């Protein structure tokens, strides 16, 4: 690495009195004093959330209202802090989605353990779990900080889906095509 020799010039008389520097600094602070605040008054003003933000993990439904999670438990296994706990269950009878193999009976994410790494979203083969925009998560007790299944769906809502994987599969089965 090249060594750069810095020429250190001795301070001039004006510099040794500190005064021009102090005056310049005071001009700078005066500009800040009169300028607008850089901060945001948080609860009233909210920051703009950029796309790709990793907020609280949520479960989503497809546009037909079907819960997308099939309780394969991949997210549970991949979760580094072991924040996710899934109890697999069967698909509810008569919901018109009998062709889907499974659905979670219970789906808990302990937000005291979650590290917002997004591995669950990455690993999910059904695109059922997403880290969305909610960034503020608070509660008065440890149990309150565990998001249960209904809460997760409430937070997640419905996201657009371009695959409709299970509908395609059902149609193929009924039409005698591939599958």
């Amino acid at each position, binding site marked *: 690495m090249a060594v750069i020799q810095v020429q250190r010039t001795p301070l001039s008389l004006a510099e040794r009195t500190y005064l021009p520097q*102090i005056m310049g*600094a*005071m001009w*700078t*602070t*005066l500009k*800040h*004093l*009169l*300028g*607008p*605040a*850089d*901060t945001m*008054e948080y609860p009233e003003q909210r920051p703009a959330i950029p796309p790709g933000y990793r907020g609280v993990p949520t479960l989503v439904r497809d546009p037909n209202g079907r819960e997308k999670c099939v309780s394969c438990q991949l997210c549970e296994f991949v979760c580094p802090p072991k924040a996710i706990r899934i109890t697999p269950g069967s698909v509810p009878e008569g919901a018109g989605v009998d062709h889907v193999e499974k659905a979670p009976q219970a789906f808990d994410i302990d937000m005291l353990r979650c590290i917002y790494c997004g591995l669950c979203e990455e690993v999910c083969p059904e695109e059922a779990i997403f880290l969305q925009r909610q960034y503020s998560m608070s509660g008065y007790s440890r149990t309150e900080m565990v998001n249960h299944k209904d809460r997760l769906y409430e937070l997640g809502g419905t996201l657009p889906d371009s695959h409709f994987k299970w509908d395609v599969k059902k149609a193929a089965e009924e039409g005698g095509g591939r599958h």
Partner: protein
Amino acid sequence: MVDMLLGLPAPVLALLKGAAVILVIFPVAAACSMAERKVCAWIQSRPGPNRALPPIFAWIPGAGILQRLGVWQLMADGGKFLFKEEPLPDHVNRLYYTLAPVIAMVPALTTVTVVPFGAYIGAGGRIVPLALSSVDVGILAVFAVASLGIYSLILAGWASNSKYPFLGGVRASAQLISYELSMMLAVLPVFLWVNEPGAAGSLSLARVVEFQSRPGFWGGAWFLFTMPVSAFVFAVALFAETNRQPFDMPESEADLVGGFHTEYGAFKWSLFFVAEYANMIVGSAVFSLLFLGGWNVLPWVPLASLLEALHHLTGSALWLHPLVAGLVSVAVLLGKVLLTIFVFMWVRWTVPRFRYDQVMKIGWQKLLPLSIANLIAYAVGIALLQR
């Protein structure tokens, strides 16, 4: 009403006046602590404290503006300091530990008595200064009593019986000794100029203001313009004397935790700060009186001619009433004091703290020779002019 007040026995009148001044100084000192936080916040591009608003006061029109200015926060802080638990550490010297904040308050409020804070035009167009006690020793009394304030810091540092407060107290005393000299030497030219040979000598601050309100170009010029070096040295020494940044060695939270008040909490701690702000107010008042023309609104515009101009402009004789003149003069001086205090705060949040050796170096090797040279130059100049 005024006649009835003036007809009261002298001790009662003095008590009333004293109470009135303390009632002004205390809230202003408290408000300064909030102003400090707000100025700090604005300089750092933040809004500052603006949340506190007790719901029972929310209906008052204008309460929202006070909320934005942090006034309710100030009251909450005051209440908190008054009512929170006051821990007394085991290792302190209890008597002196408790005494120190009280001793801090005494000189801070005593110096106020000799500072004239306004004037009214008495019989025969004579300017009568408004002060609790208009003593002739004026500036000497201010210096003598203000220096006593340092004892509280030393006492606090020693009584706390722990190393950081001790170092803070030692620094406080060394710093005061270093800058007191320059401060005194800086104001000497002013009094050399004010006390003409042949006339009766006086160190009164009112006399200095009188000199800045004479007619003519040189008469009406504030001493800030005619003695800039004195004003500069005095201002720098004032920063050091009131332990303000960049000279806040006794506190110096970066290297001494909290300095002399490390072991203090609650009301005792807040007393130190009210005393510091009271000192700042008095210091700013003395600076305004000496160098900024006291109760004259603008340079070359003395109070008397301002009131006469207002009288001509509005046609109202009310402006010439002594009470109105007194109020105007107090308002003008208070405005200057607040402006000076703002500069104090502005500097505090701009300039980083000097190192301790730099403080000593500036005090003894720069400021003191400068003030001595200034004194000699002005002494010679004044001797030639007033010969």
